[in-house]
């Protein structure tokens, strides 16, 4: 507000003189009755502006007085939420304290909605499950969604509005914003730049568009660390229009992936895993299995479940794509180099031709646009479009924005006056070459809106905390475009704002009610009447049913081949591939302890990232696991320990992103090396690099140290052909039965007999079950030092073995839970009887009886028991979890106590008691363990063996069914279905050889007895020294 000018004094005096009676004035400005004062008032108190202006009526005065009197006492209370809360004196219908409730909402996976059901205990969300109705999840749940509950209660979350690092009230921000807005209005937004992350929310997009309409010269930039830009560019080049392909793998007979980890890291991965593996399960369909070919550099879970995996450096994938396209009759693609692998190429091409149009090719998001164009061209040529592939408009609207590089340039040039960063963290996860952080200094007004006070927030003048998705009213779209809703499970713990509120602040300078903002958007969009009922329906479903994007029809442009850029030269000696971390993704989950401690599917590394190198490279450079190397890209370098991963190309190394965050919080502090520092702007995902040993050594926190299966028949695999010839190949003869009579379990008569079957044909090793178990069963995290000592606490683990040649082995996954042996070896050795068998077949742990002799673990052949070596929970723990996240139905274990998988006994008890109270039997499928419920591929089947119609009882009779270590006569209740692969007979590969060997149960000599700490391929001993 402008100060008074001297020339006004005269008129002021005159003004006062002219008045009669008692007159109060608040300031000289008011006295002057300048129009600017009115404007100032409107700005300062926008909400009360109308009230201020309204004439004062007698009735109104009385009303206000009465209200003031009535509300005076409330000032001592905490601010009440503006929405209706649940008053327990007046119990809502159907709510009983102690009974958890489920609400449909969505979790955001890099912006894409995964429909979830949030389980809340007395208004406190503790567990997310997949929403069975939602097309992206179909009831399954991924690790990120599961772990987001922990992030909700993260004490390091942004807790207040901050101005230059100091806590400030939000209204200060609005006041400051006011002058900015005026400036923007004056210049039509010139110099204003908005950076967003991925943007799939229709309502947010509308707000953003409104904002850009208000200030048309403002610039909109995107920054998504792991984006799909090259896919959009590729489809643009091919079809002339940007599309997002959505796959229907259940219709495919042959699937080819070119460096695409679509079972783990592409939008829709849960659904894709479900669809693909449904066609690869002999238990449902044993006459034909979907065949999967994968060509990739870094081994991924997709490559691990493939029938044929081609080890290929990331920058050579494009050559393979060109050659494959040429082999399939797409002319005009230059593929100058000799075929990379003739046999592979022709076998894949033949298979694709034979099975067209029931085929699907997928290209990795980190591959250049040309690969995407070629792959989609092949899909189109083979008739996959409309069958296994549908093209929809891109779900993520941020692809329309300008890239970040342009903004940094403008910032450097001083063209940007105001910078608003929303839901993105470019200061950490932009390519290091870009130098975003330095360029930031050039911008006079900077503001950050996000969930955490992260690296970017620290650079900004203003930081506005955003709500966690579980505190938010919002919407988002799923991988197929389905509109999904987010509703809050809990009042914002730290008073954050939803995105819509923040946009409202930007646009109008006011806060707005988060629910009203969202409803208003949809009410307007919905148009016709009875919106409320529909709204309630949508909220109940967690989404708007049948709102998937309509498939468009696409056709390649003529001569699209010519538009493709030349393939990059591939003569680099060593190529560094950067890839998102399977657990931390782009680094946003770095402060989440569950994810930090989640063993990565292939490396079983926790906490740290390591440079993945091939055994041959390790041998050539004399490197062992944990040896620190200096990895250099151009002038930038990081020092990082190496991890030797068989299956890596010999001339390629891989480093995962998301580690080494300086500003994530206490959990992430000092963990890992920041790979973004090496990232280039032009070629972000694969670049020439060099490495040299530093002579240092760092011990890595891995949960599995031995990688060969030592010819033991723990995992049984055969090819489809073998399976057809000998369906009972997995049945191995047990050498000798027990000499003693078997009292158990015949004497244990019970209504139920719980059992579990794990289908190794389905398991993709994605870890969803591990996180689900952690969330459900209050499993603590122990930190890197304890993991290094072999003390991780996961109740379910996924064993991963390499089979075959050292350089290019097959991988197999095997989830291992407590086997609940009928002749449990743990039970008879416990001196205090702390582990006992229940009548229904559970091997139960009595925590308060346990004294911690650990004899049970010593005697467990499966080693599934976990011990609380220290106080891992509560305040004393190094990594204590917030109490609020703990499932109230599961005991929190104390120091010195053994624990293990219980088959989710709390769920068993709740469901069986519910059924009993209702006087009925338990329905099949009503009771699910946490791991089973969350499994995207339905690999885990749990149920009652006493029921003849239960799926688990049916599978126990299946010819593929076998019990691990059955010869010990421990009679495990958790058993397995042998894996069946479907290799192409035209490719004589290790898979076939392995399968044949497995079937005939011969000793093999090619098993890679592999010792990671030594560069040699030591066949003796076999474990880490």
């Amino acid at each position, binding site marked *: 507000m402008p100060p008074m000018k001297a020339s006004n004094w005269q008129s002021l005096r005159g003004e006062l003189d002219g008045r009669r009676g008692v007159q109060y004035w608040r300031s000289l400005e008011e006295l002057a009755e300048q129009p600017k004062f009115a404007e100032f008032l409107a700005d300062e108190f926008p909400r009360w502006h109308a009230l201020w202006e309204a004439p004062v009526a007698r009735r109104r005065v009385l009303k206000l007085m009465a209200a003031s009197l009535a509300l005076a006492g409330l000032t001592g209370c905490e601010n009440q939420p503006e929405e209706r809360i649940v008053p327990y004196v007046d119990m809502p219908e159907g709510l009983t304290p102690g009974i958890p409730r489920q609400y449909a909402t969505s979790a955001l996976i890099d912006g894409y909605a995964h429909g979830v059901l949030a389980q809340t205990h007395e208004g406190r969300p503790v567990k997310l499950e997949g929403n069975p109705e939602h097309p992206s999840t179909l009831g399954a749940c991924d690790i990120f969604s599961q772990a987001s509950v922990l992030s909700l209660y993260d004490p390091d979350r942004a807790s207040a509005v901050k101005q230059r690092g100091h806590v400030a009230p939000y209204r200060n921000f609005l006041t400051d914003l006011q002058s900015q807005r005026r400036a923007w209005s004056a210049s039509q937004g010139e110099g204003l730049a908005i950076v967003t992350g991925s943007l799939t929310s229709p309502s947010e997009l509308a707000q953003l568009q409104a904002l850009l309409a208000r200030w048309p010269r403002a610039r909109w930039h995107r920054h998504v660390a792991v984006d799909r830009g090259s896919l959009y560019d590729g489809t643009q080049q091919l079809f002339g229009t940007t599309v997002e392909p959505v796959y229907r793998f259940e219709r495919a007979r042959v699937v080819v992936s070119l460096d695409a980890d679509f079972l783990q890291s592409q939008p829709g991965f849960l659904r894709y895993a479900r669809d693909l593996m449904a066609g690869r399960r002999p238990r449902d369909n044993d006459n034909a299995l979907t065949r999967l070919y994968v060509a990739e550099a870094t081994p991924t879970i997709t490559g691990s479940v493939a029938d044929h995996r081609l080890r290929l450096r990331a920058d050579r994938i494009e050559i393979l794509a060109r050659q494959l396209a040429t082999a399939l009759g797409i002319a005009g693609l230059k593929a100058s180099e000799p075929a990379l692998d003739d046999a592979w190429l022709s076998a894949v091409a033949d298979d694709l031709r034979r099975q067209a149009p029931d085929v699907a090719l997928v290209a990795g998001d980190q591959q250049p646009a040309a690969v995407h164009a070629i792959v989609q061209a092949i899909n189109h040529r083979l008739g996959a479009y409309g069958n296994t592939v549908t093209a929809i408009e891109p779900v993520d609207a941020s692809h329309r924005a300008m890239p970040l590089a342009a903004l940094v340039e403008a910032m450097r040039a001083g063209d940007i006056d105001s910078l608003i960063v929303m839901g993105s963290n470019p200061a950490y996860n932009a390519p290091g070459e870009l130098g975003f952080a330095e360029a930031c200094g050039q911008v006079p007004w900077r503001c950050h809106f996000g969930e955490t006070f992260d690296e970017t927030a620290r650079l900004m003048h203003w930081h506005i905390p955003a709500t966690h998705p579980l505190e938010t009213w919002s919407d988002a779209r799923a991988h197929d475009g389905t509109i999904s809703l987010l509703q809050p499970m809990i009042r914002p713990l730290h008073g954050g704002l939803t995105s819509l509120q923040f946009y409202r602040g930007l646009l109008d300078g006011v806060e707005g009610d988060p629910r009203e903002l969202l409803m208003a958007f949809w009410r307007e969009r919905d148009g016709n009447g009875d919106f409320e009922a529909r709204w309630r329906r949508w909220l109940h479903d967690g989404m708007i049913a049948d709102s998937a994007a309509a498939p468009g029809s696409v056709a390649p442009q003529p001569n699209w081949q010519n538009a493709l850029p030349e393939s990059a030269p591939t003569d680099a000696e060593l190529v560094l591939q950067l890839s998102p971390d399977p657990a931390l993704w782009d680094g946003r989950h770095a402060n989440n302890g569950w994810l930090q401690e989640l063993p990565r599917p292939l490396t079983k590394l926790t906490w740290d990232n390591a440079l993945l190198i091939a055994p041959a490279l390790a041998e050539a450079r004399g490197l062992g696991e944990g040896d620190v190397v200096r990895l250099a890209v151009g002038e930038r370098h990081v020092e990082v320990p190496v991890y030797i991963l068989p299956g890596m190309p010999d001339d390629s190394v891989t480093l995962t992103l998301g580690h080494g965050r300086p500003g994530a919080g206490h959990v992430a502090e000092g963990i890992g090396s920041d790979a973004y520092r090496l990232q280039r702007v032009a070629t972000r995902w694969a670049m020439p690099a060099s490495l040299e040993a530093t002579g240092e050594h760092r011990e890595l926190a891995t949960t*599995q*140290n*031995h*990688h*060969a*299966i*030592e*010819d*033991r028949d*723990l995992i049984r695999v055969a090819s489809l052909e073998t399976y057809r010839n000998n369906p009972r190949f997995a049945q191995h003869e047990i*050498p000798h039965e027990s000499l003693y009579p078997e009292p158990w379990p015949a004497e244990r008569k019970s209504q139920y007999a719980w059992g579990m079957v794990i289908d190794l044909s389905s398991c993709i090793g994605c870890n969803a079950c591990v996180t689900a178990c952690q969330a459900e069963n209050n499993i603590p995290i122990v930190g890197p030092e*304890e993991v290094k*000592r*072999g*003390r991780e606490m996961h109740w379910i*683990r996924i*064993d*991963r*073995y390499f089979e075959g040649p050292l350089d290019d082995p097959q991988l197999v996954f*095997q989830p*291992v839970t407590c086997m609940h042996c009928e002749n449990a*070896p743990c039970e*008879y*050795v*416990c*001196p*205090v*009887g702390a582990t006992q068998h229940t009548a229904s077949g559970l091997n139960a742990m009595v925590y308060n009886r*346990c*004294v*911690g*002799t*650990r*004899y049970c*673990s*010593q*005697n467990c*052949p*499966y*080693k599934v*028991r*976990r*011990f*609380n*070596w*220290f*106080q891992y929970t509560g305040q004393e723990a190094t990594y204590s979890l917030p109490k609020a996240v703990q499932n109230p139905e599961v005991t929190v274990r104390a*120091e*010195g*106590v*053994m624990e293990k998988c219980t088959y989710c006994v709390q769920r068993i008890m709740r469901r069986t008691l519910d059924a009993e109270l209702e006087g009925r039997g338990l329905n099949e499928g009503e009771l699910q363990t946490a791991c089973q419920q969350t499994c995207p591929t339905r690999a885990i089947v749990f149920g009652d063996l006493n029921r003849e119609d239960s799926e688990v009882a049916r599978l126990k009779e299946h010819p593929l069914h076998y019990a691990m*270590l059955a010869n*010990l006569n*421990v009679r495990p209740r958790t058993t397995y279905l042998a894996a069946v692969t479907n290799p192409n007979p035209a490719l004589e590969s290790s898979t076939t050889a392995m399968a044949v060997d497995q079937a005939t149960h011969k000793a093999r000599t090619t098993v890679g007895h592999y010792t990671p700490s030594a560069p040699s391929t030591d066949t*003796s*001993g*076999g*474990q*880490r*020294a």
Partner: protein
Amino acid sequence: MSHEPQPLLPRELTHARLTQRISDLVLHQRSPLGWWIALVICALLTLMLLVAIWVLFSTGVGIFGLNIPVAWGLPIVNTIWWIGIAHAGTLISAVLLLTRQPWRASINRFAEAMAMFAIVCAGMYPLLHLGRAEFFYYLLPYPDTMDLWPQWRSPLVWDFFAITMYLVFTSLFLFMSLLPDLATLRDRATHRFQQYFYAILALGWRGSATHWARYEKATMILAAVATPIVVTVTGIISLDLSVSIVPGYHFTIFPPYFVCGALFSGFSTVALLAVLLRSLFGLRDLVTDIHLDYLGRMMLLFGLAVTYAYTQEMFTAWYSGEDYYRYVYIDRWTGPYAPVWWSMIFCNAVLIQLLWFKRVRRSGIAMLCLALTSNLGMWLERFQIVFTSTHADYMPANWDINWPTGWDWAAYFGSLGLFGFLLLLFVRIMPLMSMHDMRALIALRRGGRDDG
């Protein structure tokens, strides 16, 4: 055991001189400097043990080198080792008494004391190794309101009783054998305090014929009971391992194998103490090279028995046809713990062959060295059994390495210190040789009867 005509006692030794020499050691002589040095060292080590225990109870059993799959570590190794050491003490007292071996007379007292203190050390570890040591009494069959009893099928319960009984028995046996000597000390003491002290402990022993008759009877009964205890305590502890289904633990040969191993280390420790104490207190004429010779023969006997057990263990692993068992063996030879296995073989099977030579058996310094290596070898044997068996058992995905931590070593060396501390105090307040047994030996010689 053949009895050689060489004298176990100096010719000129009489009742009076013997009694004076032994009792003066306690009552009238000042402690030698070596004793003081040893006591200070042992006291410091004991202090270290106390610190380790304090840290253990305040932070958790995780301070030890333990993990999944190797959830038993040094505490279990040390328990078995200490129990083994204790055994020779009991055996010398009991079995040699029953079989009337006269050479035991000069060494049985400190052998018994050694047994007593070794059991104290052994009994301490199972408690330290518990996750929740404060609830150790859950292993007891005490009447509780929920009718909970221990789980009788678990060898750990048997263990608890075996060790407790052994402790009670050994202290009783030691005290019994001290009674006549305590009376001697009471009578010869000149200080008021010493007189009261030994008078109370002597329980009114007057040396009457009735006393002696009852004493002899009671000693023989205790000795007869002791023999099965020697076999069962280690046997039961070995069942902790062999009752399980872990390859490398599950061998039926374990009870006799462990008993032999226990006696091997026990005799080694007796030899060790004999050499040390006789030089510390100038008793070379009473603890002679002949005694060392006998001890050496016992060491050789049990060393060979242990070596035989090793071969049988390997044979069983091969003959079982079980890949898992065979693998455990191959892993012991070639895996990360291979140095432990080969050192054990070197100590227990190779070095022990030196004892075939009389010169070695009769050399104090050689016996001292062999006693040390044998004890080390037996410790390594327990180490490799406990560590290697579960570190690479059935499922390769679980295989992991585990090494003892600094706290493990603190607790181990601390227990050595505690053992030494107690033993050093014992030899200063109790006669370190059994005066009445020695007198009986002299009497035997005088009587011209040498019936062994």
